């Protein structure tokens, strides 16, 4: 097979129409035209086989399992930093051999803090305090102590305690 097949020059090859053909994205007329071309062009026929193989491989990839309790902890606002060693693939344990990246922690914290904060907003003050305070000692002690003190004095249910909920995201470095 040569790139310059006399029956169909390079410009006439089907190219990305082959993927569209496999995906059922061609009109009936274009499909018929493509099939007629394929019958006479070994270059395109070979490419169709190769593209079809890649497509089959990709579509056969298994679902990926998040680390255990990932979403529940996310909802509870207590996702820990990192999760090295978790198994990503439900049925393909060998993808667990991938090594987690070690870079860009600041951005991870940015995202994680954001979700934690959005959980915090939805949570009862007391729950937020119990979950959040131990995770953010570097920046939150003064605020945390204030909230805890306030909590002790005022108690849950007092309208003022709503303010404590509202300021908790500050404690998450937002």
């Amino acid at each position: 097979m040569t790139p310059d097949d006399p029956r169909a020059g390079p410009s006439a090859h089907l190219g990305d129409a082959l993927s569209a053909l496999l995906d059922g994205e061609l009109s009936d007329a274009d499909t018929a035209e493509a099939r007629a071309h394929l019958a006479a062009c070994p270059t395109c026929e070979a490419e169709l086989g190769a593209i079809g193989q890649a497509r089959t491989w990709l579509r056969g990839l298994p679902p990926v399992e998040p680390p255990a309790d990932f979403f529940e902890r996310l909802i509870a606002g207590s996702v820990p930093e990192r999760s090295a060693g978790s198994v990503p693939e439900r049925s393909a344990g060998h993808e667990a051999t991938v090594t987690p990246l070690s870079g860009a922690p600041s951005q991870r914290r940015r995202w994680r803090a954001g979700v934690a904060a959005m959980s915090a907003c939805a949570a009862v003050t007391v729950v937020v305090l119990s979950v959040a305070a131990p995770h953010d000692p570097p920046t939150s002690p003064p605020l945390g102590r204030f909230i805890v003190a306030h909590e002790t004095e005022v108690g849950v249910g007092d309208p003022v305690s709503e303010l404590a909920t509202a300021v908790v995201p500050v404690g998450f470095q937002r």
Partner: protein
Amino acid sequence: MAGSGIPTWEEVARSHGRFLYTVAYRLTGNNDDAQDLVQEVLLRVRKGLSTYKPGNLEGWLSRITTNAFLDEVRWRRRRPAEVMADEPDRVLPPTVGADVALEAEVFSADIQAALGRLPDEYRTAVVLCDVVGHSYEEIAESLDIPLGTVRSRIHRGRAQLRKALVSGGHRDAG
């Protein structure tokens, strides 16, 4: 679901967590980045739920996920100093033994690694097509690109992936 038919972000996390995580993992190629991406997606889900019209939730989530992923890609490109070092998980593991099932699992990791080496734009289109199962029209809408560009990216992505896997000696061309 709430009475309005619009789910809360917590419900989305519980009902579509694995879907979200699978898409995020296929896009990012590792657990840490997948977790960060999922959290960013849930932040956007929370913000966007008020304007979400009950319908194709997975389509909506896929759009948010790919946009968040591409935003992250652009963010990294603007900050070359913070670009991650060589990513260890992108190194293909050695092919193991004669066990067919084991080989299939390893090959799944090989496909993921090859997927990770595709240009981001190709990978996004391929994931939306072959992992999520979207039509070209849906992908064009999600990525806000012309239909012809979708077709071209999917085709080139598949072709590059197949070439990488075959030339890398991880699977025979047949």
